[in-house]
């Protein structure tokens, strides 16, 4: 087992563990901190794949900006302990095993599917070798300019949504 693969499993484990504790934590602030953990672990995974720029953006934007905002909001709102519902026994006794089965199933078949591919096909045009920031920006602002612009509208929609849902009634 090479070092990158070892590191992958370590940080993938951290990411999954963080995600689980995000869901199961009852204090909102714990959830937020778990989310930061997930983001950081993901940044490391990106780095392992040679995507240094994305990794940096991941830390700056998610872990840095968004999560700080989350933590502030939670503190300002003074959100209490989350209530647990005891509804849907079916979801608990059937849902959890099924979800586990689904994940296992997918993982198994994906692993098999990936092995079935020749190495040349496993790497697409974008992911050939370490991606430089320059490559990325060329892709982003030339061939994928249109989706990039759409994203800005998407963010505008999200802002609008926040305004609509959170605005105080006149």
């Amino acid at each position: 087992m090479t070092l990158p693969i070892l590191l992958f499993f370590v940080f993938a484990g951290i990411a999954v563990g963080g995600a689980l504790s995000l869901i199961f934590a009852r204090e909102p602030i714990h959830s937020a901190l778990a989310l930061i953990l997930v983001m950081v672990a993901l940044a490391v995974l990106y780095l392992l794949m040679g995507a240094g720029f994305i990794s940096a953006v991941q830390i700056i934007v998610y872990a840095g900006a968004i999560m700080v905002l989350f933590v502030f909001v939670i503190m300002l709102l003074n959100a209490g302990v989350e209530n647990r519902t005891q509804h849907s026994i079916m979801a608990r006794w059937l849902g959890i095993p099924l979800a586990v089965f689904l994940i296992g199933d997918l993982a198994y078949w994906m692993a098999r599917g990936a092995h079935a591919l020749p190495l040349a096909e496993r790497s697409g045009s974008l992911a050939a070798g370490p991606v430089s920031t320059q490559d990325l920006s060329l892709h982003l602002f030339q061939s994928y300019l249109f989706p990039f612009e759409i994203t800005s509208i998407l963010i505008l929609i999200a802002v609008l949504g926040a305004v609509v849902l959170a605005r105080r009634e006149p």
Partner: protein
Amino acid sequence: MPLRADMMADLCRIAPELILCVFGILLVALEPFVPSSSKRALGWLAFSGSLVAIASLWIVARHPGPAYGGLIQVDNFSLFFHGIILGSVAVVILGSINYLCEERLQRGEYYALVLFAAAGMGVLAGAGELITSFLGLEMSSISTYILAAFRRDARKSNESALKYFILGSFATAFFLYGIAMTYGATGTTRFTGIAQALSISGPTLLAVLGLGMMLVGLGFKVVIAPFQIYAPDVYEGAPTPVTALLASAPKVAAFALMLRIFYVAFGPVQHIWFWAIWISAVLTMCAGNFAALLQTNVKRMLAYSSIAHAGYILVAFAASTELGIAAVLFYLAAYALMKIGAFTVITHVGGRGERHLELSDYAGLAKKQPAIAACFTLFLLSLLGLPATGGFMGKFYAFQAGLDSRIIWLVVIAALNSIVGAYYYLRVILTMYFREPAGESGPDAGLGSEIEWMPQPVAASIWVVLIIAALGTLYLGIFPSRVMEFALRSAASLR
């Protein structure tokens, strides 16, 4: 810097989306400066925006071909879908103006969100590549999540939006995962590229899994079984004009994407997905129709009915021929018209606070407002599939395509299902015409002044919507040739 000719052409190809976004931003910007007494004007601004976008289709039609290196594809197919989507959105905006006044929700953001959603759907209809289509999908989804929650003070609206959001995110995550797998399997996200790779390699496991995952996301958006389960709750809880939108335009746009992915990108492996669609069609029809049978809430009943209709569309989808694609297109056009018409009637009858959604509220409507009852009857008969209505022609082409491709059992099941459908549509007509209105039993029954409930007078904008939808339904039923010819040409342009 002067615009180069090719850049200009690219801009022309996305003219409707540009116009919609400009108007959307304009609405948001103007919103604080418009006094609350004249917010209604914002609705008319949004409506004119959608009209301008429709008009811009002429410009689009003059510039067929790929834009932005094939991320967007302008062909007859995308024009057809743009027509349905923009038309639906314009009509929905018109139907919302009065409703928002009634509910005291008249805000520029509402219209802006509708326009942004429309822009997203336009991207979906024209997308020639998976990432772009994903962004279009997100644009329309997020806008509609917010719109579903627009009645913030109504618990049902909040519940509906939350359910829609969580389940929608779940489905979209699968869609994104599917994109990643498809990319992994074929090395490209362009539809034509995927088709090329697949025709060389054949169906690889990863590609097939990717397709399955994308079907989860798409199935959620077009509301087919087993991903239809959220729809009744969401449709019932959302503000009725939003329900009209949800049931029409996003569904239509998602079908456009589904057609492109299944027929263009995964066209070479048609045999892989045929039975999945077949089974889903049967499940969808049955789930929609049988659940609708016992509904007494008309809004919810129509939600189930729109599930059933997705099933009929899948019959044409499964036909795997050009006639089948054209039938899907035609059906969607007819479907959007009659569904918007029906939900507009519900908006009107529902009244302030959406208090009159039960079947019993429709008792004697034929006497109180005969024209409204007549319009509703037309839409219901069209949904039922009575000849000389658009709904009939839609079913006709769909079944014809099915029989042509020798999927006879599916057609037979669909025909039987449409008999079941007759039962619940008829019940509403029966109630409107043949039942005496019961006394008011709503929350303010004790007031005594209101012995018999009367629907409010019909607003002019509601009239316009109903007339457009009714004439359109009849037009498609009596003169379907022209639309069908266009649909056939669109189907041909897809291949």
